[in-house]
């Protein structure tokens, strides 16, 4: 193992706008003939042939800038010494990168840089990873003649406000790489060069500290910095890494590839990997910096058991803990029947681990009571897209957006929840793509530096279907349907029924305005733009799915894409942005109670036979319980035992009282997690899990991309999560045998047609694979439905708007909608145990100033939020980001437990909860509610642990 150093070509490869191959140009560099695409810089062409031109302000993640005057070259027949980064190649030119004249200029330039740079290389954190140091060496600088007596920048104060990196202006060479990275790569425009000439300095915002500025801490500037000016605190603390391993981030569904840079078994830093298919060298604050939870002191490293949920935990051996799980589960089954236990697979764990948990439930428990976190997020996506297109996944790869002309974002907030994809999206928008945002809140995409939505449809929560039907109404009644596409690719009969349906007056924008509050003219304008603006792509999130009509809305979007011919090529499509890192994968792996891997229904005898033969058991042909049904069944006594891997249902699932009542009614709840999470407050066995750094496996991101997760350190508690599941199976008398997770994937590939061509070896060779990958598509499938839908002809579905029964009234006059924030992830179990808390230490209620004034609420006040399900209290923020009548909060903190408010209403088809619409009342409060205090007490009690050492002494 060694440190992976990607080649820096200095400038990006030229891109063809028209998608036709670029003309090739041949030139001579230092006597070598070099052939490169037209538009390539001389610097890049040189690097292509292995000649490194000295450089400081250039790096290939950024457009060339030409400020450092180090990369100069000579071209025969031309005057002067042009910068090789900003000079494109030309046919036949003869370039020299090393001449006496160039050497002398470069040495002079470096001498000037060094004359105002501290010479503390030996104790500098960048020692060994400093481009200034490298270049001083490269040009042979031996002497600085100017002395340090004059005015200089050597004693400037450091800015250490950011939790993860420092800014040391004394080491800055003002190359602008950080400023350009913030603009070009991240798209936040938080940094600038302040002042002129000698006074020029990098500045976050208007001379603010980094932490107080608009900086989103994505790390792009730190990565771009050639010196120790912007430096990871972890490197300052630990030192330079000595080897690295490419792996996949365990945060959101973007699935970024990172180099885990290590010193021995200690992680020094995570650096985004340039060849990562999803992120191509970019990152966000979570993946780049928020990994400290892996070694947090609250991490549990020993298995624990307890008799009652009011008892303290008792540390035990792995054998005792696993033995308890097996004996309890078997006892419950003997007493209450085979279907009285079940399991929940994790969308945070690997594909192999999710597959094993569902296998444990089906083959060892002998029932189909298995479900996964996707139940409460994207289950409507699976159902809706499979009915219309024939497959349960998004249609595009992320890169596809580079060819999109009109982007429609519905119920998603990518700058917070999928930041690396949002940066790509913003890059495209800055190049001129048009934008429609359908969201109750004015998200950052609606208006932020250099981004402005053409149309924002600020609909009332719960009225998605009305709006999508109204958009379709305009397209159909104004003759904007792509009839050729529909006739050729779709089921014409279902189209006609649908067209007739959406054309009805009750689906007009004018009718929708009365329901959704979106002006009819805005709907009309958005529909016209989407249908006529070129390649149209829909990106959506949980603002679509987490409704009583989540599935209907997914179908509505699929209808719209088909009617406008926006499916089956680059730049178009219907694309769910997935919440957790492996939501797509856990669904693919057969985590739903009704289907086996590859979305095949359990009632299908042929599929079942395939698995029965492979597993040597007979399978139940009936679908099992979905997560919300499990709690109902627990209350009526028919469901008594649950194995939860890597999921905190108490905090993340709706109607907390319902969840905790269900769990309290169970006799054996087994939680496998990194920390004592909220669910473990109701558990009897705790099995400590491994982090993504401690095991091998794969994650599948929102673009169906299967990425390798590589073990970079041994598991701190001794086992990978997959090994724990195997132990349970063995203890329950049905052993399964795998020596390595790759063997689990081999089994998945054998049994799943869309995965036939997938193996760890193949993923390693290709970098990543987008399923389907099989005989028909050996290289995988970046774009789905090219030339034909998976189901044959695309089917239009009638999507009647049925208002939710969760309605505002005199008691609950406001609508609560919930969401996420950049610095926190899901239930916050990981991010709350990192420096990220500095940005979001608590959940906050956003309320419109008008609604606040009516209730006598001021900025920062404690407020009580009450729904028919429950009440909690938190601090208020007054903002017009939300419309009057709508309030918003996040669910990252267990002290608030936003889900004590949300109700048990759910999607008609999938039971996906209606998190996004809850009728509430807000009133001033003087602190936490009684329930919050009681919950806190129970939670504190549940975190008492009697260590093994104490037990031995007793």
């Amino acid at each position: 193992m060694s440190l992976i150093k990607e080649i820096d070509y200095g400038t990006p490869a030229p891109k063809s706008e028209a998608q036709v191959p670029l003309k090739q140009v041949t030139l001579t560099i230092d006597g070598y003939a070099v052939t490169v695409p037209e538009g390539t810089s001389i610097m890049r062409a040189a690097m292509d042939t292995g000649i490194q031109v000295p450089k400081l302000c250039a790096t290939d993640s950024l457009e060339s800038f030409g400020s450092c005057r180090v990369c100069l070259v000579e071209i025969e027949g031309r005057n002067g010494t042009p910068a090789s980064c900003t000079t494109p190649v030309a046919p036949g030119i003869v370039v020299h990168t090393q001449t006496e004249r160039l050497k002398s200029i470069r040495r002079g330039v470096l001498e000037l840089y060094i004359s105002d740079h501290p010479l503390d290389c030996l104790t500098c954190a960048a020692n060994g990873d400093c481009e200034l140091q490298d270049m001083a060496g490269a040009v042979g600088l031996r002497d600085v003649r100017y002395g340090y007596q004059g005015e200089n920048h050597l004693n400037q104060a450091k800015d250490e406000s950011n939790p993860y990196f420092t800014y040391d202006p004394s080491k800055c060479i003002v190359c602008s790489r950080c400023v350009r990275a913030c603009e070009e790569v991240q798209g936040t425009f938080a940094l600038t060069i302040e002042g002129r000439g000698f006074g020029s300095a990098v500045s976050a915002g208007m001379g603010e500290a980094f932490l107080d500025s608009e900086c989103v801490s994505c790390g792009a500037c730190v990565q771009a910095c050639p010196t120790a000016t912007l430096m990871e605190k972890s490197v300052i603390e630990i030192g330079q890494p000595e080897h690295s391993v490419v792996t996949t981030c365990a945060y959101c569904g973007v699935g970024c590839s990172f180099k885990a840079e290590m010193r021995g078994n200690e992680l020094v830093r995570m650096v985004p990997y340039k060849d990562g298919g999803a992120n191509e060298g970019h990152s966000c604050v979570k993946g780049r910096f928020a990994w400290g939870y892996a070694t947090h002191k609250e991490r549990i490293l020993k298995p624990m058991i307890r008799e009652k949920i009011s008892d303290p935990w008792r540390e035990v051996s792995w054998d005792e803990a696993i033995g308890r799980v097996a004996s309890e589960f078997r006892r419950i089954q003997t007493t209450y029947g085979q279907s009285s236990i079940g399991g929940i697979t994790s969308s945070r764990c690997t594909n192999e681990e999710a597959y094993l948990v569902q296998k444990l439930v089906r083959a060892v428990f002998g029932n189909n009571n298995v479900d996964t976190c996707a139940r409460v997020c994207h289950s409507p996506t699976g159902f809706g897209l499979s009915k219309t297109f024939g497959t349960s996944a998004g249609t595009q790869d992320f890169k596809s957006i580079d060819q999109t002309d009109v982007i429609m974002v519905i119920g998603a907030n990518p700058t917070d929840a999928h930041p690396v994809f949002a940066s790509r999206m913003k890059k495209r928008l800055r190049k001129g793509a048009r934008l429609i945002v359908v969201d109750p809140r004015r998200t950052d995409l609606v208006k932020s530096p250099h981004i402005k939505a053409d149309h924002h449809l600020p609909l009332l929560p719960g009225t998605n279907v009305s709006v999508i039907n109204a958009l379709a109404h305009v397209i159909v009644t104004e003759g904007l349907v792509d009839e050729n596409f529909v006739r050729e690719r779709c089921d014409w009969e279902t189209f006609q029924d649908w067209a007739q349906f959406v054309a009805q007056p009750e689906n007009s924008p004018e009718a929708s305005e009365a329901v959704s509050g979106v002006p009819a003219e805005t709907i009309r304008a958005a529909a016209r733009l989407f249908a006529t603006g070129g390649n149209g792509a829909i990106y959506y999130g949980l603002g679509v799915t987490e409704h009583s009509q989540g599935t209907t809305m997914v179908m509505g979007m699929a209808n719209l894409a088909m009617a406008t011919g926006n499916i089956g090529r680059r730049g178009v499509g219907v694309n769910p942005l997935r919440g957790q890192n492996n939501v797509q994968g856990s669904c693919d792996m057969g985590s739903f109670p009704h289907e086996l891997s590859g979305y095949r229904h359990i009632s299908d005898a042929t599929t079942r036979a395939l698995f029965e033969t492979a597993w040597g058991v007979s399978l139940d042909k009936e679908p099992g319980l979905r997560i919300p049904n499990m709690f109902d069944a627990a209350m009526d006594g028919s469901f008594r035992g649950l194995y939860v891997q890597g999921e905190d249902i108490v905090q993340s699932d709706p109607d907390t009282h319902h969840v905790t009542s269900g769990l309290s009614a169970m006799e054996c709840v087994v939680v496998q997690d990194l920390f004592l999470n909220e669910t473990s407050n109701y558990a009897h066995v705790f099995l400590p899990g491994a982090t993504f750094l401690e095991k091998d496996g794969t994650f599948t991101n929102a673009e169906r991309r299967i990425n390798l997760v590589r073990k970079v350190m041994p598991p701190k508690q001794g086992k990978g999560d997959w090994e724990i599941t195997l132990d349970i199976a063995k203890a329950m008398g049905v052993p399964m045998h795998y020596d390595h997770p790759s063997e689990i994937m081999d089994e998945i590939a054998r049994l799943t047609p869309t995965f036939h061509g997938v193996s760890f070896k193949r993923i390693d060779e290709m970098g990543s694979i987008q399923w389907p990958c099989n005989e028909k598509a050996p290289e995988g499938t970046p774009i789905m439905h090219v030339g034909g839908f998976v189901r044959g002809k695309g089917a239009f579905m009638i999507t009647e708007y049925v208002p939710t029964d969760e309605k505002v009234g005199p008691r609950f006059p406001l609508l609560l909608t919930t969401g996420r924030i950049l610095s926190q992830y899901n239930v916050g179990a990981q991010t709350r145990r990192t420096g990220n808390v500095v940005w979001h230490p608590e959940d906050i209620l956003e309320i419109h100033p008008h609604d606040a004034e009516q209730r006598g609420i001021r900025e920062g006040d404690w407020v009580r939020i009450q729904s028919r399900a429950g009440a909690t209290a938190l601090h208020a923020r007054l903002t017009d980001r939300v419309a009057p009548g709508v309030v918003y909060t996040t669910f990252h903190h267990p002290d608030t437990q936003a889900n004590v408010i949300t109700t048990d209403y759910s999607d008609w088809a999938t039971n996906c909860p209606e998190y996004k619409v809850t009728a509430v009342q807000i009133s001033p409060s003087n602190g936490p509610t009684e329930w919050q205090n009681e919950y806190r007490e129970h939670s504190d009690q549940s975190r008492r642990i009697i260590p093994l050492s104490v037990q031995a002494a007793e």
Partner: protein
Amino acid sequence: MSPDKLVYMANQIGKFFAHQPEEKAVDAVADHIRKFWDPRMRKAILAHVDAGGAGLDPRTLKAVEAVRASVA
């Protein structure tokens, strides 16, 4: 399992298919319940039907009846 909740869920499915002719709608609702409801949920709603089926929309009631054969 609380019959109220199951009745509500079944009616919700019925509403999605409400635009279809009765026979097709009944089949579609029954198919959905068969494919996605655990047997104990089907048993519970059938018991509710046997007790009069209060609250079930007429077509949904027919669909639930059609599910009976799937429950042993």
